[in-house]
């Protein structure tokens, strides 16, 4: 038997494929997901309209025009009508959208960050640290979110910053749970053990090996969290604990509309419709991402 040591020359180069090839099916699956595409378009339209709309309108959001109070929509000078002080509803809606969406995105960012950190640490170290953290998560989760929200809101002076913080505080637990579960199972996988055997630092192991592998569920949870945050902010503001007038938010516009529900129903219908559009938009987007990013659907070996 001759010594046949394989040498470089004997190994044909493997087929070249673009590194991104493995992820392309996810994008294609996403593009085919009609509801997700609807959600994405709705969100883009909302964001662009809220960002630019108020500049294009001749009316200011606080401009009071008592001669044109309670103008119904689709007739006259105000497209979506005007409120009890003659303020343009469309401009107020878009401006409120800035606040509501900002709160939504900021709360999502904050809650996701907190959830990821707590989930990572709990899942990675396990033991009593992990148990203590996750029991804390369970404890917070066992409070109804709206109850927690109102309790906290009652204790501080409401504002955009405080309401963002409060909403974030009621929404990070789900992310922490998802991340903890994923990290705990990924830690046992060969690639994580391989990294540990090399002697990399804990931070490297968590951030460079584990985190990239759980981005998909994090993105999904974060997207759904935006919807949740918008909804929570609306609740709080509607109940008067959130964003305070005259700064408009979708929630406090609904609050304001209550009195005129029979005489000027459009004051309630439009903010309500926009909240529904934003929330379902983010929910559809999240569902679509979940389906598209599910690695079990990938057929590559």
């Amino acid at each position, binding site marked *: *038997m*001759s*010594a*046949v*040591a*394989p*040498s*470089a020359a*004997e*190994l044909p*180069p*493997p*087929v*070249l*494929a673009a*590194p991104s090839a*493995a992820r392309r099916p996810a994008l294609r699956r996403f593009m085919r997901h009609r509801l997700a595409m609807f959600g994405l378009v709705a969100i883009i339209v909302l964001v662009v309209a809220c960002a630019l709309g108020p500049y294009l309108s001749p009316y200011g959001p606080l401009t009071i025009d008592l001669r044109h109070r309670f103008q119904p929509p689709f007739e006259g000078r105000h497209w979506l009508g005007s409120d009890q002080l003659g303020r343009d509803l469309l401009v107020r809606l878009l401006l409120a959208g800035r606040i509501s969406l900002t709160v939504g995105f900021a709360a999502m960012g904050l809650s996701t960050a907190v959830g990821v950190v707590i989930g990572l640490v709990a899942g990675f170290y396990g033991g009593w640290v992990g148990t203590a953290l996750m029991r804390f998560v369970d404890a917070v989760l066992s409070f109804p979110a709206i109850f927690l929200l109102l309790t906290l809101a009652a204790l501080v002076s409401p504002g955009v910053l405080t309401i963002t913080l409060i909403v974030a505080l009621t929404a990070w637990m789900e992310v922490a749970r998802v991340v903890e579960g994923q990290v705990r199972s990924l830690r046992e*996988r*060969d*690639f994580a*053990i*391989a*990294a*540990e*055997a*090399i*002697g*990399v*630092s*804990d931070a*490297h192991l968590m951030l460079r*090996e584990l985190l*990239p*592998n759980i981005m998909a569920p994090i993105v999904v949870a974060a997207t759904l969290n935006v919807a949740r945050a918008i909804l929570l902010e609306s609740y709080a503001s509607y109940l008067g604990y959130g964003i305070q007038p005259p700064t408009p938010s979708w929630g406090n516009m609904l609050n304001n509309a209550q009195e005129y529900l029979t005489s000027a129903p459009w004051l309630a219908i439009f903010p309500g419709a926009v909240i529904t559009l934003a929330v379902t938009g983010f929910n559809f987007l999240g569902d679509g991402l979940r389906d598209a990013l599910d690695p079990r659907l990938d057929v*590559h*070996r």
Partner: protein
Amino acid sequence: MNSPLLQVTDLAKHYPVAGGRTLRAVNGVSFTLRAGEVLGVVGESGSGKTTLGRVVLRLTPPSAGEIVFRGQDVTHLSRRALRKVRRHMQLVFQDPYASLNPRMSVEQILAIPLQVHEPSLGRADRRSRIEEMLRTVGLFAEAADRYPHEFSGGQRQRIGIARALICRPELLVADEPVSALDVSVQAQVVNLLLDLRERLGLSILFIAHDIAVVGMISDRIAVMYLGRVVEIADTLSLFNRPRHPYTEALFSAVPDLGGRRDRILLQGDVPSPVSPPSGCPFRTRCRYAEPDCAVEVPSLVERSPGHLAACHRPELVLASPLSDVAPLPRLR
């Protein structure tokens, strides 16, 4: 030869399981590994051989016993202190698909050990070390720019070996490195490990369930059953004169190109390590078992120089695979 590279004494790893019981995955294992030596560890699934490898590398803490590596007691080192030791002891996995991060290029994968253990290395030097290592394991230097999914199983296993060896460790634990590969590719990887061992003076703990593969590469072999070493000897001594019925059965199970033989078929599976049989753990599947075998656990006894076995029936003369291999003309 001077002091051993690795000395393991009475090592144990227990896991608590439901019902307040204990799973004794590794149960009092002792061995030494000299510098430049290959020690094979062979046994079926459930024998504890994979756990043994992980505990020796301190990837999971031992329940009892002592691990001395390069003269240093590493049994109770902290995670932080272990990191410095890890550069000298590395691991190759069974599954070449699961052990490489699919999101990193081969260069990124091989760069990590260098970044951790040789942070002073410049970018260009790092790249040249990576390319050199890839050539050493029989791959093109250009493989550095590709991703794991572009390679075949055998090539991925070479990448795994390159990652383990790039910081020039002294000890390599190879956990079933060829059992997920086609036989033809198995042979390539076994040959590669033999080459690397000669060239780099590596010490290898080679873990596998196929005693023929283990015999190819090992200087000494430890046979494990239910968390214990039941026989340990020089490879030739073990093959010439197996002293434990389990070893005899492992030899008999190897499919042979000579065709059908009378084989000693082991009945059933390895018993659960949660509730092992009383006395000799192997007695339930042993064709030589006698009632006395159930009384106490046999201890490892030196039966000839360097050849230890744990069997209550030392008088047995067991079949050697070297005496009855069917004659088949060697090819090439």
